[in-house]
């Protein structure tokens, strides 16, 4: 199996509080992978580790066959759950930012996405609603030609229309190119049909891992499984 991400016995603590304990799993290339779990279960930490923004205390991680390093940022896009766009940048300037700093930035695609998301080019970061800001940040990630995309809670607190557009964009992107997508979320409804593979994180460990269609045969919908795991 060609893995996009591998965790070998990864452990992490913050101020003596154990967040992750001896986690080993891998994410095959080309999958839409969901890391599910409740708030504070360590999902975000796992994603940050993949993005080389947080180092494990124990164990090791491989991303696209290499140890995490800045070079990986040429091949991955990471969207933090708390990420905000620069307040003094307009949409137009955000596109310039993309073009200036990401060698794989596809300007024509970005232009299309501005239309798709119905964003006003003169809108400043600080004038944006939460939905508009989410659209812009999604646009910047998806205008890049990356191999791996890491999305941390992309739908939380986002309006319905924006969520639907985001999902449409995700589906189109995985149609168009070979892309591995890792999404952390606690909102199953949005992604029930989208995920190929999932893991459930609970109390520092992965408690269930597998292919979604197989899990459906064994234990029903992801939502039911979620209730079972966290009840």
């Amino acid at each position: 199996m060609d893995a996009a991400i591998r965790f070998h016995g990864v452990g992490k603590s913050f101020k003596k509080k154990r967040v992750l304990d001896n986690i080993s799993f891998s994410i095959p290339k080309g999958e839409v992978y969901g890391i599910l779990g409740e708030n504070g279960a360590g999902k975000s930490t796992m994603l940050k580790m993949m993005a080389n923004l947080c180092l494990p205390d124990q164990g090791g991680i491989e991303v696209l066959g290499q140890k995490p390093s800045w070079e990986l940022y040429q091949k991955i896009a990471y969207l933090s759950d708390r990420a905000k766009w620069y307040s003094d940048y307009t949409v137009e300037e955000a596109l310039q930012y993309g073009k200036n700093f990401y060698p794989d930035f596809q300007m024509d695609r970005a232009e299309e996405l501005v239309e798709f998301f119905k964003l006003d080019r003169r809108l400043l970061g600080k004038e944006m609603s939460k939905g508009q800001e989410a659209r812009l940040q999604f646009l910047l990630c998806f205008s890049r030609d990356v191999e791996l995309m890491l999305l941390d809670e992309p739908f939380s607190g986002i309006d319905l229309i924006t969520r639907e557009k985001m999902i449409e964009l995700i589906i189109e992107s995985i149609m168009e190119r070979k892309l591995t997508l890792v999404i952390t979320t606690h909102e199953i409804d949005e992604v029930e049909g989208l995920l190929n593979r999932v893991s459930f994180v609970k109390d520092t460990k992965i408690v269930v891992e597998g292919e979604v269609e197989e899990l459906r045969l064994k234990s029903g919908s992801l939502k039911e499984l979620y209730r079972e795991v966290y009840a």
Partner: protein
Amino acid sequence: METRVVGSYRFILDFSQPIYEQLVQQFRQMLAKGEIELGSKLPSVRDFAVQMKINPSTVVRAYQELERDGLCEKRRGQGTFITSSADQVAGLRREMAENALESFVEVLKILGVTQEEAQKMIAGVEWK
């Protein structure tokens, strides 16, 4: 259970069952019922996936399954088309009816219902 519409097709998705199987099953039913015109073009994988909000690979898998059963065919560069053979569809209809009948008979047998009783019961059922 959720109803999702793609073009002229309406699907009922139950996320507690494998999705690709449901797609295949519901396509077969629609075909057998004659709800799908012979030789018509199926939605593209992209449109299907976007409108159903499901992973494109699930759609591909369902289309492949239908193709293997000879219920549709892929034409290079044009997309996937429903078979234009009426025989094929008639065969499918017969097969599905036979399968249903078989399990129906199995259940009646377990209950100790005889063939004559069953025939009487069927005759008495309001068919509309």
